């Protein structure tokens, strides 16, 4: 799965005919300044300013500001850009137009084993968590599309009526089309709201795409974001860059605060190794994995990164019986890196 940030996520919705508020993603105060001059809505509407990074709980961190006029938005952008939160620097801010609305709805499309589930409820916004049982679901088999009649029924079942029911059905149709055509795995719009002319607008989007399908989406020009509530670290990005280049795979995720570093082989075995550490009360400093007969230099890069983790006491190297990985070669990569890194550590002592 590959998470896409709000800006490009909204872009994909618009591509398939779903209305979103006007928005821009800016990386500097000058850019904000320029855009505010040429876009009328900056002056006409209230504005929302949010940090455009893969961060959880942005509200709590003060990284979402609503109901701003142009001047307030300008200072919010200034305040957020460049702000440092642990290892993350805020590099982008999304500025969007506030939409006056009364009701908030919820809509999502999710991949399942059989196909997709289309879900909708009138209990949108923060209410959806506590009203999960009110969410109505339509299961669509893979290779099929939901019919207009099915969506109309779904919308009525969820408690929509009259013109709104019709609009919701149309909205869900577009959302499904977007999901299907963009190789999405999860699309969640919360809230969906009605603007003053009664049209449905997607105010916020969670977008997870199938990274494996990138080869057939030349317009996916945006980077994928980390899915675990923080941006990727430099080490992780460097390992990802190697992973993208080589046969087989090398993976690294840092876990701050741990002291046992992991360097196992195999997508399956690596998790059992991690489980074994946790079961014995250990604190993992990272997750790592190499598999599929990667070149020795790629394993060497991964080992270097693992060795560079702060405060580690142990490094666990392991794996299962290889099917086709040349273990002599991959261990060569580990030994080379250990030679250099441990050598450097000894010399510095």
């Amino acid at each position, binding site marked *: *799965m590959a998470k896409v940030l709000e800006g490009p996520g909204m872009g994909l919705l618009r591509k398939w005919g779903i209305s979103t508020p006007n928005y821009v993603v800016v990386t500097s105060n000058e850019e904000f300044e320029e855009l505010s001059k040429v876009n009328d809505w900056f002056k006409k509407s209230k504005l929302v300013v949010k940090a455009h990074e893969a961060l959880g709980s942005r509200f709590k961190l003060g990284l979402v500001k609503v109901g701003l006029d142009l001047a307030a938005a300008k200072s919010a952008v200034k305040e957020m850009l460049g702000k440092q939160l642990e290892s993350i620097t805020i590099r982008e801010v999304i500025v969007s137009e506030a939409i006056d609305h009364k009701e908030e709805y919820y809509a999502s499309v999710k*991949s399942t*084993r*059989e*196909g997709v589930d289309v879900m909708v409820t009138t209990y949108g916004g923060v209410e959806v968590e506590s009203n*999960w049982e009110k969410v109505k679901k339509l299961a669509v*088999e*893979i*290779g099929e599309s939901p019919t207009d009649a099915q969506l109309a029924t779904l919308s009525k079942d969820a408690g929509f009526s009259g013109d709104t029911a019709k609009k919701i059905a149309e909205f869900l149709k577009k959302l499904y089309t977007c999901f*299907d055509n963009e*190789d999405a*795995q*999860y699309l969640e719009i919360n809230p969906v709201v009605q603007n003053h002319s009664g049209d449905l607008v997607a105010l916020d989007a969670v977008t997870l795409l*199938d990274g*494996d*399908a990138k*080869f*057939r989406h030349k317009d996916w020009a945006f980077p994928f974001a980390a*899915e*675990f*509530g*923080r941006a990727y670290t430099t080490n992780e990005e460097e390992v990802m860059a190697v992973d993208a280049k080589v046969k087989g795979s090398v993976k690294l*995720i840092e*876990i701050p605060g741990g002291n046992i570093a992991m360097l196992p*082989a*195999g*997508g*399956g*075995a*690596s*998790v*059992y190794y*991690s*489980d*074994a*550490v*946790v*079961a014995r009360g250990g*604190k*993992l400093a990272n*997750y790592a*994995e190499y*598999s*599929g007969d990667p070149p020795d230099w790629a394993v060497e890069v991964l080992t270097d990164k693992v060795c560079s983790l702060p405060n580690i006491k142990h490094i666990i190297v392991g*794996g*299962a*019986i*290889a*099917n*086709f990985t040349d273990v002599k070669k991959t261990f060569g990569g580990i030994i080379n890196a250990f030679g250099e890194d441990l050598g450097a550590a000894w010399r510095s002592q």
Partner: protein
Amino acid sequence: MSILATKDTYVVIQGGLAGVNAARRMAEFCYMNKQPLNVSAFVYPPDAGKTNDVVCGTELVPIPIYKTVADATANHPEINTSLVYIGANRAYQGTMEALDDPKIQTVSMITEGVPEKDAKLLGKHARKLGKTFNGPSSIGVVSAGECRLGVIGGAFDNLVACKLYRPGSFGVITKSGGLSNEIIWICSQFADGITTAIGIGGDAYPGTDYVSYLEMFENDPQTKAVVLVGEMGGDLEEGAAEWYGAKKRRIKLLAVVSGFCQESLPKGMKFGHAGAKEGLKGEGSARSKAEALKKSGANVPETFGALGPAIKATYEELLKSGAVKAIPDLAPVDMPRLPKTVAEAKKDGEVLVAPLIRSTICDDRGDEPLYQGYPASELINAGYDIPHVIGLLWDNRLVSKQEAEIIKRIIMLSADHGPCVSGALTTVIAACAGIGLSQAVAAGMIMIGPRFGGAVTDAGRWFKYAIDNKLTVDDFLVYMKKNVGPVPGIGHRVKSLRNPDKRVKELVRHVKSLGMKTPHLDFALEVEKITAAKKDNLILNVDGTMAAVLVDIGFPVDSLNGFFVLARTIGMIGHWTDQKRQGSRLIRLFDYLVNYASPKRREVPKLK
């Protein structure tokens, strides 16, 4: 008995190099079981019409390559299974092609990174046709003693160690390729081994779920228990639990699930395989899966490490109940073995091979070449130079500093002699004709012979003959006139006593200044005195001087032309790159440079 892959499985492999490697591994398995190769054909459009030669025991078996699956099954009607080794961006079409072929019942896909939507569509299509689509990302399927699909099981030694040459009593289903191998091994060490092991692939939505395979195992009397290795994410383990708990099953189920570490990690952190992701509402966690399996009556050890003992306990119960009988181990001599390659047998000291060639100068088998035993890099670091390498490789010895200096000067003096001489001119003509460096230089090199540059060896030979036989200069000249002809190394086309060759003068001056003994050079200079007195241009030329000096410092006569060849190579490469740099065009002689001495135009007589 076994499931999915049996004695009657015949395979077409779709894909290129990775598929050929899989075929090689499958051939090892067939050889271990004394079966013919079960790979009948490849489908790989770029190589259609050719064959892939697969090593099978001591033979190379040519396996035909076709453009389409239909071509393959038409020519090999026994095919009933396809292995997909096609890249992720083309795997969908290739797999559809296989599924749609009426002869094919099972398709197993090793390709990783296949879009989820494609995998789901393939799974649905297979179910609709009543066929099995295993994968994506599947390491393969292996049935002990019967059939291997893909590289599952690893290297040959591991196949034997895991007793895959005969069936045991345990079925294995895993998402992970590496762990499938590990579990097969555990089953062979803690119990009597496996019937069939299946890698279903680690993707979120594999084409076939655990339940389909559990049903098959339930219907296979040889299989007494099944080991299921699950992962967090998705709902396949829950499905398996539901199936197992639904009614009394003949097979015993052992299961482990990975991903407990997730509980102590930041939410949403994704580990391991693509499918290993907890749901948004906490469903699919390792704990909930393990609980579901436990509740269904499956044996769920707390850790992976406890799986081996659990398998052992299950096996002992089966033994006790009489459901299985212990299988005696093979005696070491009866263990299957792959034929050794010559290199392996040689290493083990089991075979003597008569060498084809003998080399006394250089050994390249280590991490760098050894010249006469000296590592090249160490020679460099110790300050040795190109002339020393020449000494080592041409005369099996390290030359002295003084000798090295002479060799260096000889090479510098004869590196080039302008574009007009035979060798350079030929290289230039070739370069202008667009010929590549090595061929153009080789063309120039062909000119080196008795009349151009190639007299060094002969000059050396006869000067040495004179000294060895203590001939006087007069006796020598008489001998040469009578038996050989003009003295090699004497005479020059343009140089003469009045127009001396400065290269010769310089070389003689240097060598004489060293105070070393130079009997051959001295003799050659004496010869020159007599011959040049007879005719002005019968001087000691550069070939003759080099020859005399090199024989004086001990180089073997046969190596002497090499000094000219080596030196002039520098010049010829220069001429070639010079022409190339200038973008020179094709040249030809002007008519007026040819004396056309052939008969004038005339009538062609009638053919008789």
